[in-house]
Protein backbone atom coordinates (compact mmCIF):
# COMPACT_ATOMS: atom_id res chain seq x y z
CA UNK A 1 0.00 0.00 0.00
CA UNK A 2 1.30 3.45 -0.91
CA UNK A 3 2.60 5.73 1.86
CA UNK A 4 0.56 8.74 2.89
CA UNK A 5 1.80 12.13 1.67
CA UNK A 6 3.32 12.96 5.06
CA UNK A 7 5.01 9.56 5.32
CA UNK A 8 6.41 9.99 1.83
CA UNK A 9 7.74 13.45 2.70
CA UNK A 10 9.50 12.00 5.76
CA UNK A 11 10.99 9.15 3.70
CA UNK A 12 12.27 11.58 1.05
CA UNK A 13 13.85 13.84 3.67
CA UNK A 14 15.50 10.86 5.34
CA UNK A 15 16.93 9.75 2.01
CA UNK A 16 18.22 13.27 1.26
CA UNK A 17 19.82 13.43 4.69
CA UNK A 18 21.50 10.02 4.68
CA UNK A 19 22.44 9.35 1.05
CA UNK A 20 26.23 9.23 0.50
CA UNK A 21 26.09 12.03 -2.06
CA UNK A 22 24.32 15.30 -1.18
CA UNK A 23 22.73 15.77 -4.64
CA UNK A 24 20.08 13.24 -5.64
CA UNK A 25 18.24 12.60 -8.88
CA UNK A 26 14.46 12.39 -8.69
CA UNK A 27 14.78 8.69 -9.52
CA UNK A 28 16.75 8.18 -6.32
CA UNK A 29 13.57 8.96 -4.39
CA UNK A 30 11.42 6.41 -6.24
CA UNK A 31 12.68 3.68 -3.89
CA UNK A 32 11.21 5.59 -0.94
CA UNK A 33 7.88 4.09 -1.92
CA UNK A 34 7.68 1.68 -4.85
CA UNK A 35 3.87 1.80 -4.66
CA UNK A 36 3.68 5.52 -5.45
CA UNK A 37 3.82 6.66 -9.08
CA UNK A 38 6.97 8.59 -10.13
CA UNK A 39 4.96 11.72 -11.00
CA UNK A 40 3.48 11.79 -7.50
CA UNK A 41 6.93 11.39 -5.93
CA UNK A 42 8.11 14.31 -8.08
CA UNK A 43 5.19 16.42 -6.86
CA UNK A 44 5.95 15.63 -3.23
CA UNK A 45 9.69 16.38 -3.69
CA UNK A 46 8.78 19.71 -5.31
CA UNK A 47 6.46 20.49 -2.39
CA UNK A 48 9.41 19.96 -0.06
CA UNK A 49 11.33 22.54 -2.10
CA UNK A 50 8.43 25.00 -1.73
CA UNK A 51 8.50 24.35 2.02
CA UNK A 52 12.22 25.15 2.06
CA UNK A 53 13.22 21.66 3.27
CA UNK A 54 14.88 20.61 0.01
CA UNK A 55 16.46 22.72 -2.69
CA UNK A 56 17.13 22.33 -6.38
CA UNK A 57 20.71 21.90 -7.56
CA UNK A 58 21.08 22.34 -11.29
CA UNK A 59 24.00 21.64 -13.58
CA UNK A 60 22.15 23.49 -16.33
CA UNK A 61 21.23 20.30 -18.16
CA UNK A 62 20.08 18.21 -15.21
CA UNK A 63 18.34 19.18 -12.02
CA UNK A 64 18.93 17.39 -8.73
CA UNK A 65 17.57 17.73 -5.21
CA UNK A 66 19.60 18.41 -2.08
CA UNK A 67 19.32 19.46 1.52
CA UNK A 68 20.68 22.95 1.91
CA UNK A 69 22.74 21.99 4.94
CA UNK A 70 24.63 19.38 2.92
CA UNK A 71 25.72 21.55 0.02
CA UNK A 72 27.77 24.66 -0.46
CA UNK A 73 26.92 27.33 -3.00
CA UNK A 74 28.86 28.25 -6.09
CA UNK A 75 29.68 24.72 -7.01
CA UNK A 76 29.61 23.83 -10.61
CA UNK A 77 30.52 21.26 -13.15
CA UNK A 78 31.41 21.48 -16.77
CA UNK A 79 28.16 19.87 -17.92
CA UNK A 80 26.53 20.85 -21.15
CA UNK A 81 23.25 22.67 -20.85
Amino acid at each position, binding site marked *: MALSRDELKAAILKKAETAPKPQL*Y*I*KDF*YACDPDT*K*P*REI*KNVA*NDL*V*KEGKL*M*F*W*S*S*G*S*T*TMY*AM*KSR*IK*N*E*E*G*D*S*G*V*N
Partner: protein
Amino acid sequence: MAKHETPLLDELEKGPWPSFVTDIKRQAEKNPACWDILGQVELSYKEKITHWKHGGIVGVFGYGGGIVGRYSDLPKRFPGVEHFHTVRLNQPASKYYSTEHLRAICDKWEKYGSGMTNMHGSTGDLVLLGCRTESLEPLFYELTHELQQDLGGSGSNLRTPANCLGQSRCEWACYDTEEACHQLTMHYQDEIHRPAFPYKFKFKFSGCPNDCVAAIARSDVAVIGTWRDNIRIDQAAVKEYVAGKIPSNGGAHASRDWGKFDIQKEVIALCPTGCMWMEGGDLKIDDAECTRCMHCLNVMPRALRPGVEQGATICVGAKAPILDGAQFATMIVPFMKVSADNEFEELIEFIEKIWDWWMEVGKNRERVGETMQRIGLPTFIKVMDLEPIPQHIKEPRSNPYVFWQEEEVEGGWDRDVEEFRARHAA
Protein backbone atom coordinates in the same frame (compact mmCIF):
# COMPACT_ATOMS: atom_id res chain seq x y z
CA MET B 1 39.92 51.35 -23.49
CA ALA B 2 40.43 47.58 -23.53
CA LYS B 3 41.15 46.07 -20.13
CA HIS B 4 42.78 42.93 -21.53
CA GLU B 5 44.95 42.21 -24.57
CA THR B 6 42.94 39.93 -26.88
CA PRO B 7 45.05 39.16 -29.98
CA LEU B 8 43.39 35.79 -30.64
CA LEU B 9 39.85 37.15 -30.34
CA ASP B 10 40.77 40.14 -32.48
CA GLU B 11 41.42 37.71 -35.36
CA LEU B 12 37.72 36.82 -35.28
CA GLU B 13 36.82 40.40 -36.20
CA LYS B 14 38.76 40.33 -39.45
CA GLY B 15 36.49 38.07 -41.51
CA PRO B 16 33.49 39.17 -43.56
CA TRP B 17 30.93 38.10 -40.96
CA PRO B 18 29.55 39.92 -37.92
CA SER B 19 31.64 38.99 -34.91
CA PHE B 20 30.53 38.35 -31.34
CA VAL B 21 33.87 39.87 -30.30
CA THR B 22 32.89 43.22 -31.80
CA ASP B 23 29.49 42.98 -30.11
CA ILE B 24 31.03 42.32 -26.69
CA LYS B 25 33.54 45.15 -27.13
CA ARG B 26 30.69 47.50 -27.98
CA GLN B 27 28.76 46.40 -24.89
CA ALA B 28 31.90 46.74 -22.74
CA GLU B 29 31.94 50.47 -23.50
CA LYS B 30 28.62 50.63 -21.62
CA ASN B 31 29.29 47.91 -19.05
CA PRO B 32 33.01 47.50 -18.23
CA ALA B 33 32.37 44.05 -16.65
CA CYS B 34 32.08 42.76 -20.23
CA TRP B 35 35.83 43.31 -20.73
CA ASP B 36 36.34 40.39 -18.37
CA ILE B 37 34.35 38.10 -20.71
CA LEU B 38 36.84 38.90 -23.44
CA GLY B 39 39.76 38.43 -21.06
CA GLN B 40 38.53 35.04 -19.89
CA VAL B 41 37.63 33.79 -23.36
CA GLU B 42 41.03 34.92 -24.69
CA LEU B 43 42.70 32.94 -21.90
CA SER B 44 40.58 29.87 -22.74
CA TYR B 45 41.58 30.13 -26.41
CA LYS B 46 45.22 30.32 -25.33
CA GLU B 47 45.11 27.49 -22.80
CA LYS B 48 42.53 25.43 -24.71
CA ILE B 49 40.55 24.87 -21.53
CA THR B 50 37.30 26.38 -20.29
CA HIS B 51 37.29 28.67 -17.29
CA TRP B 52 33.51 28.54 -16.86
CA LYS B 53 31.88 26.44 -14.17
CA HIS B 54 28.25 25.48 -14.77
CA GLY B 55 25.51 24.85 -12.30
CA GLY B 56 24.94 25.24 -8.61
CA ILE B 57 22.04 26.33 -6.46
CA VAL B 58 21.16 29.61 -8.14
CA GLY B 59 17.56 30.11 -9.12
CA VAL B 60 14.54 32.09 -8.15
CA PHE B 61 12.15 31.12 -5.39
CA GLY B 62 9.68 28.41 -6.37
CA TYR B 63 11.31 27.75 -9.71
CA GLY B 64 13.56 24.82 -10.54
CA GLY B 65 14.46 26.03 -14.00
CA GLY B 66 14.98 29.06 -16.18
CA ILE B 67 18.28 30.08 -14.62
CA VAL B 68 21.55 28.35 -15.46
CA GLY B 69 24.26 29.01 -12.91
CA ARG B 70 27.62 29.97 -14.35
CA TYR B 71 30.76 31.09 -12.55
CA SER B 72 34.32 31.96 -13.45
CA ASP B 73 36.98 29.71 -11.97
CA LEU B 74 39.29 32.77 -11.97
CA PRO B 75 37.09 35.29 -10.12
CA LYS B 76 40.00 37.39 -8.82
CA ARG B 77 41.47 37.80 -12.27
CA PHE B 78 38.12 38.37 -13.98
CA PRO B 79 35.80 39.85 -11.33
CA GLY B 80 33.26 41.05 -13.91
CA VAL B 81 32.35 37.42 -14.65
CA GLU B 82 32.67 36.04 -11.14
CA HIS B 83 28.93 35.29 -11.36
CA PHE B 84 27.68 35.10 -14.92
CA HIS B 85 24.35 33.28 -14.76
CA THR B 86 22.13 32.75 -17.76
CA VAL B 87 18.46 33.70 -17.61
CA ARG B 88 16.10 32.03 -20.08
CA LEU B 89 12.88 33.85 -20.92
CA ASN B 90 9.92 32.03 -22.44
CA GLN B 91 9.48 33.39 -25.94
CA PRO B 92 5.93 34.03 -27.19
CA ALA B 93 4.53 31.57 -29.75
CA SER B 94 6.31 32.09 -33.10
CA LYS B 95 8.49 34.74 -31.41
CA TYR B 96 6.02 37.53 -32.13
CA TYR B 97 7.25 40.32 -29.85
CA SER B 98 6.37 43.95 -29.96
CA THR B 99 9.40 46.23 -30.11
CA GLU B 100 8.01 47.89 -26.98
CA HIS B 101 8.25 44.57 -25.12
CA LEU B 102 11.77 43.89 -26.40
CA ARG B 103 12.94 47.37 -25.37
CA ALA B 104 11.42 46.92 -21.92
CA ILE B 105 13.24 43.58 -21.48
CA CYS B 106 16.51 45.15 -22.65
CA ASP B 107 16.07 48.01 -20.16
CA LYS B 108 15.55 45.56 -17.31
CA TRP B 109 18.53 43.56 -18.47
CA GLU B 110 20.84 46.57 -18.60
CA LYS B 111 19.67 47.46 -15.09
CA TYR B 112 20.30 44.02 -13.56
CA GLY B 113 22.64 42.15 -15.92
CA SER B 114 25.45 42.44 -18.41
CA GLY B 115 23.19 43.73 -21.20
CA MET B 116 24.26 40.84 -23.42
CA THR B 117 21.62 38.66 -25.02
CA ASN B 118 21.40 35.63 -27.26
CA MET B 119 18.44 35.79 -29.63
CA HIS B 120 17.48 32.99 -29.37
CA GLY B 121 18.64 29.81 -27.65
CA SER B 122 18.23 26.55 -29.52
CA THR B 123 15.04 25.79 -27.60
CA GLY B 124 13.72 29.18 -28.67
CA ASP B 125 14.11 31.10 -25.41
CA LEU B 126 15.24 34.67 -25.32
CA VAL B 127 18.53 34.23 -23.48
CA LEU B 128 20.02 36.86 -21.16
CA LEU B 129 23.71 36.22 -20.52
CA GLY B 130 25.47 37.31 -17.36
CA CYS B 131 23.71 38.07 -14.08
CA ARG B 132 25.00 38.13 -10.52
CA THR B 133 23.22 35.92 -7.95
CA GLU B 134 21.90 38.85 -5.90
CA SER B 135 20.29 40.44 -9.00
CA LEU B 136 18.27 37.36 -9.98
CA GLU B 137 15.30 37.85 -7.65
CA PRO B 138 14.78 41.58 -8.35
CA LEU B 139 15.12 40.95 -12.11
CA PHE B 140 12.62 38.08 -11.94
CA TYR B 141 10.18 40.15 -9.89
CA GLU B 142 10.17 43.02 -12.37
CA LEU B 143 10.02 40.75 -15.42
CA THR B 144 7.00 38.88 -14.08
CA HIS B 145 5.16 41.71 -12.34
CA GLU B 146 5.79 44.58 -14.74
CA LEU B 147 6.23 42.85 -18.10
CA GLN B 148 4.27 39.62 -17.52
CA GLN B 149 7.34 37.86 -18.86
CA ASP B 150 7.94 34.36 -17.48
CA LEU B 151 11.08 32.23 -17.43
CA GLY B 152 11.63 29.30 -19.76
CA GLY B 153 12.74 25.77 -18.96
CA SER B 154 16.15 24.33 -18.13
CA GLY B 155 17.57 21.31 -16.34
CA SER B 156 15.41 18.19 -16.07
CA ASN B 157 12.29 20.18 -16.84
CA LEU B 158 10.00 20.35 -19.80
CA ARG B 159 11.88 22.82 -21.97
CA THR B 160 10.16 25.85 -23.41
CA PRO B 161 7.94 24.56 -26.23
CA ALA B 162 8.65 26.08 -29.64
CA ASN B 163 6.73 26.35 -32.90
CA CYS B 164 6.98 27.63 -36.46
CA LEU B 165 5.06 30.65 -37.75
CA GLY B 166 2.17 28.33 -38.53
CA GLN B 167 -1.10 29.60 -39.90
CA SER B 168 -0.22 33.19 -38.94
CA ARG B 169 2.01 33.46 -42.02
CA CYS B 170 2.14 30.16 -43.83
CA GLU B 171 -0.41 28.61 -46.15
CA TRP B 172 1.14 25.14 -45.72
CA ALA B 173 0.50 24.89 -41.99
CA CYS B 174 -1.75 21.88 -41.47
CA TYR B 175 -2.75 22.80 -37.92
CA ASP B 176 -2.56 25.85 -35.68
CA THR B 177 0.98 25.50 -34.30
CA GLU B 178 0.73 28.72 -32.30
CA GLU B 179 -2.42 27.63 -30.52
CA ALA B 180 -0.92 24.18 -29.82
CA CYS B 181 2.33 25.66 -28.51
CA HIS B 182 0.57 28.26 -26.36
CA GLN B 183 -2.00 25.87 -24.90
CA LEU B 184 0.54 23.18 -24.06
CA THR B 185 2.88 25.76 -22.55
CA MET B 186 0.06 26.91 -20.26
CA HIS B 187 -1.09 23.35 -19.54
CA TYR B 188 2.38 22.25 -18.45
CA GLN B 189 3.52 25.24 -16.39
CA ASP B 190 4.48 22.99 -13.48
CA GLU B 191 6.63 20.74 -15.70
CA ILE B 192 8.33 23.78 -17.29
CA HIS B 193 9.20 25.46 -14.00
CA ARG B 194 9.97 22.50 -11.78
CA PRO B 195 12.06 19.44 -12.59
CA ALA B 196 10.00 16.38 -13.34
CA PHE B 197 12.02 14.00 -15.44
CA PRO B 198 15.20 11.92 -15.67
CA TYR B 199 16.55 14.52 -18.12
CA LYS B 200 15.39 17.33 -20.41
CA PHE B 201 12.22 16.92 -22.51
CA LYS B 202 11.24 19.04 -25.51
CA PHE B 203 8.18 19.47 -27.70
CA LYS B 204 8.28 21.31 -30.98
CA PHE B 205 5.43 22.12 -33.33
CA SER B 206 5.91 22.37 -37.09
CA GLY B 207 2.95 23.15 -39.28
CA CYS B 208 4.06 21.12 -42.29
CA PRO B 209 6.75 18.60 -43.26
CA ASN B 210 9.17 21.43 -44.16
CA ASP B 211 9.61 21.38 -40.38
CA CYS B 212 10.92 24.93 -39.95
CA VAL B 213 11.62 24.40 -36.21
CA ALA B 214 13.59 21.20 -36.94
CA ALA B 215 11.28 19.29 -34.62
CA ILE B 216 12.24 15.93 -36.12
CA ALA B 217 15.88 16.50 -35.26
CA ARG B 218 15.71 18.31 -31.95
CA SER B 219 12.64 17.40 -29.93
CA ASP B 220 11.55 14.45 -27.84
CA VAL B 221 8.02 14.84 -29.20
CA ALA B 222 7.84 16.35 -32.70
CA VAL B 223 4.38 17.35 -33.88
CA ILE B 224 4.71 17.81 -37.63
CA GLY B 225 1.75 18.89 -39.74
CA THR B 226 0.65 16.61 -42.55
CA TRP B 227 -2.42 15.59 -44.57
CA ARG B 228 -3.86 12.21 -45.39
CA ASP B 229 -5.75 12.80 -48.59
CA ASN B 230 -4.30 14.01 -51.88
CA ILE B 231 -2.11 17.00 -52.71
CA ARG B 232 -4.37 19.63 -54.24
CA ILE B 233 -3.31 20.39 -57.81
CA ASP B 234 -4.24 23.50 -59.80
CA GLN B 235 -3.49 22.23 -63.32
CA ALA B 236 -3.84 25.72 -64.83
CA ALA B 237 -1.12 27.00 -62.48
CA VAL B 238 1.07 23.99 -63.35
CA LYS B 239 0.85 25.07 -66.99
CA GLU B 240 1.77 28.63 -66.03
CA TYR B 241 4.88 27.36 -64.26
CA VAL B 242 5.80 25.21 -67.27
CA ALA B 243 5.33 28.24 -69.55
CA GLY B 244 7.57 30.31 -67.28
CA LYS B 245 4.78 32.74 -66.39
CA ILE B 246 5.04 32.09 -62.64
CA PRO B 247 8.56 32.03 -61.18
CA SER B 248 9.42 28.74 -59.48
CA ASN B 249 10.30 28.57 -55.76
CA GLY B 250 8.23 31.68 -55.16
CA GLY B 251 10.87 33.74 -56.96
CA ALA B 252 13.71 32.69 -54.67
CA HIS B 253 17.17 32.19 -56.23
CA ALA B 254 16.28 34.91 -58.77
CA SER B 255 19.65 36.63 -58.49
CA ARG B 256 21.00 34.30 -61.17
CA ASP B 257 19.58 33.10 -64.50
CA TRP B 258 18.99 29.37 -64.08
CA GLY B 259 17.43 29.03 -67.53
CA LYS B 260 13.89 28.02 -68.38
CA PHE B 261 11.93 26.13 -65.72
CA ASP B 262 12.01 22.41 -66.50
CA ILE B 263 9.29 20.56 -64.56
CA GLN B 264 10.69 17.16 -65.56
CA LYS B 265 14.19 17.94 -64.34
CA GLU B 266 13.40 20.21 -61.38
CA VAL B 267 10.36 18.50 -59.94
CA ILE B 268 9.42 15.09 -61.33
CA ALA B 269 12.94 13.64 -61.49
CA LEU B 270 13.70 14.86 -57.97
CA CYS B 271 10.67 13.22 -56.35
CA PRO B 272 12.24 10.71 -53.91
CA THR B 273 9.57 8.06 -54.53
CA GLY B 274 9.11 8.76 -58.23
CA CYS B 275 5.37 9.18 -57.75
CA MET B 276 4.84 12.05 -60.25
CA TRP B 277 4.49 12.19 -64.00
CA MET B 278 3.02 14.35 -66.79
CA GLU B 279 0.08 13.06 -68.79
CA GLY B 280 -1.44 15.10 -71.61
CA GLY B 281 -0.09 18.34 -70.15
CA ASP B 282 -1.44 17.56 -66.67
CA LEU B 283 0.68 16.77 -63.62
CA LYS B 284 -0.27 13.45 -62.02
CA ILE B 285 0.64 12.25 -58.52
CA ASP B 286 0.30 8.78 -57.05
CA ASP B 287 -0.45 10.15 -53.58
CA ALA B 288 -0.20 6.78 -51.83
CA GLU B 289 3.52 6.85 -52.59
CA CYS B 290 4.12 10.46 -51.49
CA THR B 291 6.51 10.72 -48.51
CA ARG B 292 5.71 14.39 -47.80
CA CYS B 293 9.19 15.58 -48.80
CA MET B 294 7.53 18.90 -49.78
CA HIS B 295 9.89 19.51 -52.71
CA CYS B 296 7.15 19.81 -55.38
CA LEU B 297 5.06 22.09 -53.15
CA ASN B 298 8.08 24.27 -52.42
CA VAL B 299 8.94 24.63 -56.12
CA MET B 300 5.38 25.27 -57.34
CA PRO B 301 3.51 26.77 -54.37
CA ARG B 302 0.74 28.27 -56.49
CA ALA B 303 0.04 24.97 -58.24
CA LEU B 304 0.31 22.49 -55.38
CA ARG B 305 -1.12 22.65 -51.87
CA PRO B 306 -1.42 20.19 -48.98
CA GLY B 307 -4.58 18.09 -48.93
CA VAL B 308 -7.65 19.16 -46.98
CA GLU B 309 -7.75 16.40 -44.37
CA GLN B 310 -5.08 17.85 -42.13
CA GLY B 311 -3.47 16.89 -38.84
CA ALA B 312 -0.01 15.93 -37.65
CA THR B 313 2.47 13.10 -37.62
CA ILE B 314 3.94 12.46 -34.18
CA CYS B 315 7.58 11.47 -34.01
CA VAL B 316 9.36 10.64 -30.76
CA GLY B 317 12.91 10.53 -29.52
CA ALA B 318 15.12 13.05 -31.33
CA LYS B 319 18.08 14.71 -29.67
CA ALA B 320 20.79 17.05 -30.90
CA PRO B 321 23.52 17.06 -28.27
CA ILE B 322 26.51 19.31 -28.73
CA LEU B 323 29.12 16.62 -28.26
CA ASP B 324 27.93 13.42 -29.96
CA GLY B 325 25.04 11.06 -30.54
CA ALA B 326 22.60 13.13 -32.56
CA GLN B 327 19.48 11.11 -33.32
CA PHE B 328 16.42 11.69 -35.48
CA ALA B 329 12.95 11.06 -34.11
CA THR B 330 11.08 7.85 -34.90
CA MET B 331 7.65 8.05 -36.47
CA ILE B 332 5.16 6.69 -33.96
CA VAL B 333 1.72 8.01 -34.98
CA PRO B 334 1.34 8.67 -38.73
CA PHE B 335 -1.72 10.88 -38.35
CA MET B 336 -3.36 12.55 -35.38
CA LYS B 337 -5.97 15.29 -35.37
CA VAL B 338 -4.41 18.24 -33.54
CA SER B 339 -7.13 20.64 -32.63
CA ALA B 340 -7.96 23.28 -30.05
CA ASP B 341 -11.60 22.12 -30.28
CA ASN B 342 -10.86 19.29 -27.85
CA GLU B 343 -8.02 21.19 -26.12
CA PHE B 344 -5.40 18.96 -27.75
CA GLU B 345 -6.69 16.10 -25.63
CA GLU B 346 -5.33 13.29 -27.82
CA LEU B 347 -1.86 14.84 -27.95
CA ILE B 348 -1.79 15.46 -24.19
CA GLU B 349 -2.83 11.88 -23.50
CA PHE B 350 -0.07 10.65 -25.82
CA ILE B 351 2.59 12.82 -24.15
CA GLU B 352 1.62 11.79 -20.63
CA LYS B 353 1.73 8.12 -21.55
CA ILE B 354 5.33 8.65 -22.66
CA TRP B 355 6.16 10.49 -19.44
CA ASP B 356 4.67 7.79 -17.18
CA TRP B 357 6.81 5.16 -18.90
CA TRP B 358 10.00 7.20 -19.24
CA MET B 359 9.92 8.46 -15.64
CA GLU B 360 9.76 4.86 -14.49
CA VAL B 361 12.26 3.13 -16.77
CA GLY B 362 14.48 5.97 -18.05
CA LYS B 363 17.95 6.17 -16.51
CA ASN B 364 19.29 9.41 -15.08
CA ARG B 365 20.42 11.76 -17.87
CA GLU B 366 18.84 9.54 -20.52
CA ARG B 367 16.67 11.20 -23.19
CA VAL B 368 13.47 9.37 -24.08
CA GLY B 369 14.92 8.47 -27.50
CA GLU B 370 17.80 6.72 -25.79
CA THR B 371 15.40 4.83 -23.52
CA MET B 372 13.45 3.75 -26.61
CA GLN B 373 16.66 2.58 -28.24
CA ARG B 374 17.83 0.71 -25.14
CA ILE B 375 14.55 -1.04 -24.48
CA GLY B 376 13.40 -1.43 -28.06
CA LEU B 377 10.72 -0.02 -30.33
CA PRO B 378 8.39 -3.07 -29.97
CA THR B 379 8.16 -2.48 -26.20
CA PHE B 380 7.65 1.25 -26.68
CA ILE B 381 4.83 0.68 -29.18
CA LYS B 382 3.19 -1.74 -26.76
CA VAL B 383 3.53 0.72 -23.85
CA MET B 384 1.87 3.37 -25.99
CA ASP B 385 -1.05 0.98 -26.65
CA LEU B 386 -0.43 1.13 -30.38
CA GLU B 387 -0.57 -1.62 -32.98
CA PRO B 388 2.64 -1.99 -34.99
CA ILE B 389 2.18 -0.71 -38.54
CA PRO B 390 4.40 -0.91 -41.63
CA GLN B 391 5.39 2.75 -41.22
CA HIS B 392 7.13 1.89 -37.93
CA ILE B 393 9.64 -0.22 -39.84
CA LYS B 394 12.74 1.63 -40.97
CA GLU B 395 13.97 -1.02 -43.38
CA PRO B 396 13.20 -4.64 -44.32
CA ARG B 397 14.15 -6.92 -41.45
CA SER B 398 17.59 -8.46 -41.48
CA ASN B 399 17.02 -10.69 -38.43
CA PRO B 400 15.45 -14.01 -39.57
CA TYR B 401 14.03 -14.91 -36.14
CA VAL B 402 10.44 -14.22 -35.25
CA PHE B 403 9.92 -13.30 -31.64
CA TRP B 404 6.60 -14.63 -30.37
CA GLN B 405 4.95 -13.54 -27.17
CA GLU B 406 3.97 -16.41 -24.85
CA GLU B 407 0.27 -15.68 -25.25
CA GLU B 408 0.61 -15.98 -29.02
CA VAL B 409 1.84 -19.59 -28.77
CA GLU B 410 -0.71 -22.34 -28.31
CA GLY B 411 -0.11 -23.86 -24.87
CA GLY B 412 2.39 -21.13 -23.90
CA TRP B 413 6.03 -21.88 -23.07
CA ASP B 414 5.09 -24.90 -20.93
CA ARG B 415 3.28 -26.95 -23.53
CA ASP B 416 3.90 -30.70 -23.70
CA VAL B 417 6.55 -31.10 -26.40
CA GLU B 418 6.35 -34.91 -26.28
CA GLU B 419 2.67 -34.74 -27.07
CA PHE B 420 3.38 -32.28 -29.90
CA ARG B 421 6.14 -34.50 -31.31
CA ALA B 422 3.80 -37.48 -31.25
CA ARG B 423 1.75 -35.64 -33.83
CA HIS B 424 4.56 -33.84 -35.66
CA ALA B 425 7.73 -35.89 -35.97
CA ALA B 426 10.91 -33.78 -35.92
